[in-house]
């Protein structure tokens, strides 16, 4: 069977399953409370997997994911409120109209978030190391301040009146697409280049990888996908507030991918689900809920520092750069499907005079 045919069949099966599940959930056959948590998990999956592309696979430390999410959420919400409703109505106002309006809305959200990613990425990704963390943190704060002051999207009072679309199909379609996109990137030449940057940026450059270009590309894709996640959130409750996008949200997503395992897509998915479901599952403990939640996280990080499903690769790379010492490649990761052969035999050498590898 030709490859494209196989892929087409898989895609059709996935869509059919999603439509089937959507039908089941819309029909209230399952408790809406569980369905809601399930859908929130779906949104979290989109966010976590997209962040993993830049933090886990490329090894760049971004902590402004909520900012890109906010850009996507607000731009798409603005479109939906001002044009989307008309667009849907002009197309008959039925299901077809809404599907088109939502599609356009999602693309707009992803586009503007990607644009913001480009604007942030180009200057800051030329530098090496921790600068990106500071720039993205700043970006996240700036976005929140902006949103607090733009009257057209409600300012600090929040943006309400966004059409509510609680569609299991739509949320999980975006989540699946995100996973497919990131998976394909990671398993392509592009992805190998990204991983080589993570393992040793200087060596990657010496091997002919245009590191800045690859980093910016990965960053833009990651931001655009985060924007798509924001679009889902905007239409989920039909209400947005700048407070929802403060840096704590970025950290929540960061915790998801670290808990799941940096550089593991399945790990990110699992991390997103666990961190969305856990606070709800612990509701029975009342006041102790967040204490138990935090304790569980601490215990997990002590027992499995590489995350639930993480390979030790990204962690090693990070430690290596931290200590500025070349670690012995002998104890290499046993389960590291992502560690490419191109970097496995990286020669160990000290940092060239004066240049800081961090």
């Amino acid at each position, binding site marked *: 069977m030709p490859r494209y045919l196989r892929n087409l069949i898989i895609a059709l099966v996935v869509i059919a399953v999603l439509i089937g599940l959507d039908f089941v959930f819309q029909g209230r056959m399952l*408790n*809406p*409370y*569980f369905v*809601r*948590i*399930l859908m*929130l998990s779906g949104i979290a999956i989109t966010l976590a997997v997209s962040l993993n592309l830049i933090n886990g696979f490329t090894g760049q430390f971004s902590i402004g994911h909520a900012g890109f999410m906010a850009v996507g959420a607000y731009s798409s919400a603005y479109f939906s*409120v001002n044009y989307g*409703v008309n667009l*849907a109505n002009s197309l008959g106002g039925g*299901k077809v109209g*809404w599907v088109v309006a939502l599609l356009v809305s999602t693309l707009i959200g992803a586009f503007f978030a990607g644009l913001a990613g480009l604007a942030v990425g180009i200057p800051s990704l030329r530098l090496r190391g921790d600068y990106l963390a500071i720039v993205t943190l700043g970006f996240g704060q700036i976005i929140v301040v902006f949103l*607090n*002051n733009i009257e057209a999207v409600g*300012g*600090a*009072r*929040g943006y*309400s*009146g*966004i*059409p*509510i*679309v*609680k569609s299991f199909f739509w949320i999980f379609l975006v989540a699946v697409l995100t996973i497919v996109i990131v998976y394909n990137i990671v398993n392509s030449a592009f992805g190998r280049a990204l991983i080589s940057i993570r393992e040793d940026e200087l060596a990657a450059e010496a091997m002919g990888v245009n590191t800045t270009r690859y980093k910016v590309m990965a960053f833009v894709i990651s931001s655009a996908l985060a924007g798509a996640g924001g679009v889902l*959130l905007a239409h*989920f*409750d*039909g*209400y947005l*507030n700048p*407070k*929802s996008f403060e840096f704590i949200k970025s950290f929540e997503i960061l915790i998801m991918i670290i808990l799941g395992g940096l550089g593991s897509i*399945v790990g990110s*998915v*699992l991390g997103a*689900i*666990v961190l969305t*479901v*856990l*606070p*709800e*599952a612990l*509701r*029975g403990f*009342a*006041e102790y*809920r*967040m204490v138990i939640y935090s304790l569980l996280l601490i215990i997990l990080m002590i027992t499995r520092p590489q995350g*639930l*499903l993480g390979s030790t690769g990204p962690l090693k790379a990070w430690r290596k750069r931290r200590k500025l010492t070349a670690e012995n490649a002998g104890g290499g990761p046993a389960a590291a499907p992502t560690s490419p052969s191109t970097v496995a035999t990286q020669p160990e050498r000290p940092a060239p005079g004066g240049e800081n590898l961090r």
Partner: protein
Amino acid sequence: MKRILLALILSVSLFSACTNPGAGGDKVRVGVFMSLTGSTANFGISSVNGIQMAADEINAAGGINGKQVELLVQDDRSDASEAATIVTKFVTQDQVHAILGEVASSRSIAAAPIAQNAKIPMLTPSSTNPEVTKKGDFIFRSCFIDPVQGAAIAQFAAKTLNAKSAAIMVDRKNDYSTGLEKVINEVFTRMGGKIVAVQSYQEGDQDFNAQLTSLKGSNPEVIFVPGYYNDVGLIAKQARDKGITVPLIGGDGWDSTQLYAIGGTALNGSYFTNHYSPYDTDPKVQKFVNDYKARHNSLPDALAATAYDAAKIMFDAIKRAPSLEGPAIRDALAATKEFPGVTGAVTFNENRDAVKPIVMIEIKDGGTYAVKERVTVEGAALPTAANAAPPTVAPANE
């Protein structure tokens, strides 16, 4: 493959972990969602204290029509999406009869459509954004909204203090402050006053000398400071140091025991609007204050008082309702007339917002409060902005 299997097993077990059998039995179940952790935890905790006290009182007195009240208190971590999740849980899994919450308008707005869809009445004790009750006819509010408060401040200055000119100090970055400023400016001007100067500051500023010097030059009879207590205290101190002796007037953002600790005697003779005053000599208020003190060993703040009232209003409606069905309770709630709460007599208007007097408090020596006046905003004083509804969009396929 093994990992995917592991992932699946883990997530399934997590989902099943949050199954808990819906509460049954012969009780009145009231869902309470508040911020018990996170950025506004202190507000949420005060509110829950007030609600818990109201529930304990009614249960001790035999419950509502012989049925005990069961409170289901849930924490939303000061997060809007989590607030909506909790209300979803309330209306589906817990099958509550009524809902009380939230403090912050953002969380109330996010959660309100869910209560509305499920036709379960929801009453917020302290969300002041006009948008909240526009979410549907099952959503109620038992406190005044900001535009009404602003109008009360302006009316008090123009009528009671007979001021002809005023200056405003506004926190430009703060939505609450700019919202009040707009209304005060509009109403005060309409009532024949003149705003002679507007100066801005930012939350957290320490030095207000430049703005105050400028204000002093224009000789206002009163200065409106619609901000929060920490800034207000400093502004008052520095204003008195500059020789500005006119009264300062503000809103419920001033309400804190910290206010007098920061501003001290500089605040004597200044006024602010509030939901109630713990120093009110009304026996109803004194009983509430003493009972609260006995339980929590502290003075109840305005949030505890409004939440206590909200719970009692809800219990009263449930008592009058012919059944425990959502629409029956809703109708009884809407029919609430002159309910004697500690924060004043409450009646709901056609927007399901509480109509009640606003307490104008005068700060006396030693940081004690005296109720200067109970301001009922006159129809003519109402700001136009309070009535103007923002354009609403029909929700799409749910």
